């Protein structure tokens, strides 16, 4: 049976273990490393909170019968290309973000998105899509594509990851 959870994210989003275990009880069954699951949450939510200046943000989680999970984080914020102001073409700016470019110049920044992409695409053969302003970026183990559209694709940013939850590696074995 397919499981779906849709929730609004705000500044008071409850990240405690008991709350997540309760809300996502149908999702974390069969997950072989919950910390990796929490890692995705932490990095994606931190990115929204730190960079997007959102008014509204949402999380859509979907789990299929074959243990494939989709986690989609969306916000109506200022978008990656606007935040980074790196290239005229939005897809090039998003590409740089996936390689570690951060709008914050503090030491140690810029690892959240690349590490998530590395785990999803290289280690467990999942898929990742980023859509922000005029561009879309798609990454799998074998493919990495990005393109621009003529008009704004989304009013904000969408990051969506798809993975087989039975394949999640121990986060501490790969860092």
């Amino acid at each position: 049976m397919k499981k779906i959870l849709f929730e609004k994210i705000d500044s008071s989003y409850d990240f405690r273990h008991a709350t997540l275990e309760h809300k996502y009880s149908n999702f974390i069954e069969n997950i072989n490393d919950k910390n990796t699951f929490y890692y995705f949450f932490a990095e994606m939510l931190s990115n929204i909170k730190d960079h997007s200046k959102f008014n509204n943000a949402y999380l859509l989680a979907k789990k299929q019968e074959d243990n494939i999970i989709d986690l989609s984080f969306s916000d109506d914020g200022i978008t990656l290309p606007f935040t980074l102001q790196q290239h005229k073409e939005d897809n090039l700016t998003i590409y740089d973000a996936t390689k570690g470019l951060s709008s914050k110049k503090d030491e140690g920044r810029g690892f959240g998105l690349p590490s998530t992409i590395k785990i999803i695409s290289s280690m467990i053969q999942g898929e990742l899509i980023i859509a922000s302003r005029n561009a879309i970026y798609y990454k799998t183990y074998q493919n990495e594509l990005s393109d621009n559209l003529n008009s704004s694709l989304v009013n904000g940013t969408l990051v969506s990851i798809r993975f087989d939850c039975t394949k999640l590696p121990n986060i501490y074995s790969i860092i």
Partner: protein
Amino acid sequence: MTTKTINMYERYGDIIGLRYLAESIFDNIGDNIEIVVDFDKVEFIGRSFTQEYIRQKKKQNAKIIEINASSSITNMIDWVVKTWK
């Protein structure tokens, strides 16, 4: 020297993921003090939180000691320190 203990579980819960939580962690601590950061019952800390925690820690003049940190927490701290740029 005075010792002040920060109980991470009581303050943030057992999963500490978001960066902003660390931004004010050492606010109003004072000088000439020893800070004990107690990770008892904390199961997971995210990379972004850890990066900010270390950044705030570097700004302190106080001696900071971490106690009751599980291997998952020490591994994350070690990873962030290792990849600091």
